[in-house]
């Protein structure tokens, strides 16, 4: 337990952050208690989180932060470094454009949009997913398309002389995803957001 408090102290201490202690002293071995953080570090490219030393260029480059001060990528990273799982249930994380302006300007090339994506994934079962995103995901795993294909549109394609693209082999795709369990997850989730698809 002592180790845990020491690390959190280090993470919160601005002097330590400035000197880069955070990125060098925190290792996976020492923070076993920090479950959310460890889960994230285990995901593909999740480990880039450890390179963050809270420089803040991400926030100054972010077009959302520019118009919405409560959207602060640097603070999101700090919360995740501290394994604050509450961030996974904050609707704000879904305001990330995934434009990667932050990543392009980060001196350490931390995969910031990707890390926020992982935070979103972690919040799925709590319902932190916009209704339109949930609907779209269901369409993808049932029809293999992100939008329903209508008969009039198929007619239009035919008139334009465009090829028939067929239908994706959904049985094969669903079977392939069995160990991930996405189909049953999507059935259980209820979005805490109102509204539905509107594009």
């Amino acid at each position, binding site marked *: 337990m002592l180790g845990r408090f020491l690390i959190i102290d280090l993470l919160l201490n601005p002097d330590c952050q400035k000197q880069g202690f955070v990125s060098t002293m925190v290792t996976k071995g020492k923070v076993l208690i920090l479950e959310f953080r460890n889960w994230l570090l285990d995901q593909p490219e999740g480990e880039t989180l450890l390179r963050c030393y809270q420089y803040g260029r991400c926030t100054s480059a972010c077009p959302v932060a520019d*118009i919405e001060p409560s959207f602060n990528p640097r603070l999101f990273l700090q919360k995740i470094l501290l394994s604050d799982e509450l961030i996974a249930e904050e*609707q704000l994380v879904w305001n990330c454009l995934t434009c990667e302006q932050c990543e392009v300007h980060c001196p350490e090339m931390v995969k910031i949009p990707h890390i926020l994506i992982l935070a*979103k994934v972690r919040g799925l079962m709590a319902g932190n*997913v916009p209704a339109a995103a949930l609907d*779209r995901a269901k369409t993808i795993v049932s029809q293999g398309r992100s939008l329903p294909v209508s008969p009039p549109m198929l007619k239009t394609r035919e008139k334009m002389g465009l090829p028939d*693209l*067929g239908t994706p082999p959904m049985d094969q795709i669903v079977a392939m995803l069995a160990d991930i369990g996405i189909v049953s997850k999507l059935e259980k989730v209820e979005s805490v957001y109102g509204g539905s698809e509107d594009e």
Partner: protein
Amino acid sequence: MSKARKYTYFPGCMIPYRLPHFELTMTEVLKKLGVELETTPDHSCCPEPTTFTGVDFEAWVTIAARNVAVSEAIGNDTMAMCSGCFHTLAVANHMVHEDEELKERINKRLKASGLEVTGSHEVKNVLHVLRNDIGLDAIEKIVTNPLKKLRIAPHYGCHLVRPLEATNMDHADDPQWMDEVIRATGAEIAEFENKMACCGAPIMPSGEDKAVTITSKHLKNIKASGADAIVVVCPTCYTQLETQQAKAEAISDSEFRIPVLYLGELLALSMGLTDLVTANQRRYHRVKITELLEKAGGAS
């Protein structure tokens, strides 16, 4: 014309089923340039990179890698017209290439269908094909109606360009390839502030006002450049800058009325395929392009 270049065309969803005039114009332009496209019913939604990733990343990367594996089995390089599809396939391909554990995990899932992903397949966007495989000289050669009177603002969009290690584009902040292709049609480039600004579309499902505010700031910069039109590659950017332009005007109390063309439409206009553009202008363009077409000339 030398022998045809063959690609596996990855159609995705937005272009074939919402904006088929993209596919129509670009396919005809590519035909003129000696490109042959093949499709397969085995490809599914890429899946789109802006929301499905945040629902279940592992499922996203697995479906994406499966699509790449389908292409690998066919053998030709893959070409996507949509920036979202391209981004998804290129990123998944790159991740599989860099992460042995991930590759193993996905190949285990693919085994039953006899597919395998190696991470070494060539995933290209239509811009790579035009600018690098076909080349600017070959494009210039078949321009019959140089668009000399047009000043065009190129909107690249984020997912076409970033991350560079996966997209193999030329520059993360100041890309030039689309500028070069546009110049090959005879048109001039309208320079504007913040060239790589996001269109705003990805957060329409979670924060429409913020999305549209971002769109309006971008359109304001482009308006100030005096551009005759915006040219895009990505169907999602098109939807945001074109279809939603009225919302961007309303939220910022401005009047933009900037026509938006797909790159395939611009190329078609320069190559005497004007009818392809005029035939669909009312259905797919909310911002009128009549004046623009007059300025472009070449109508039959």
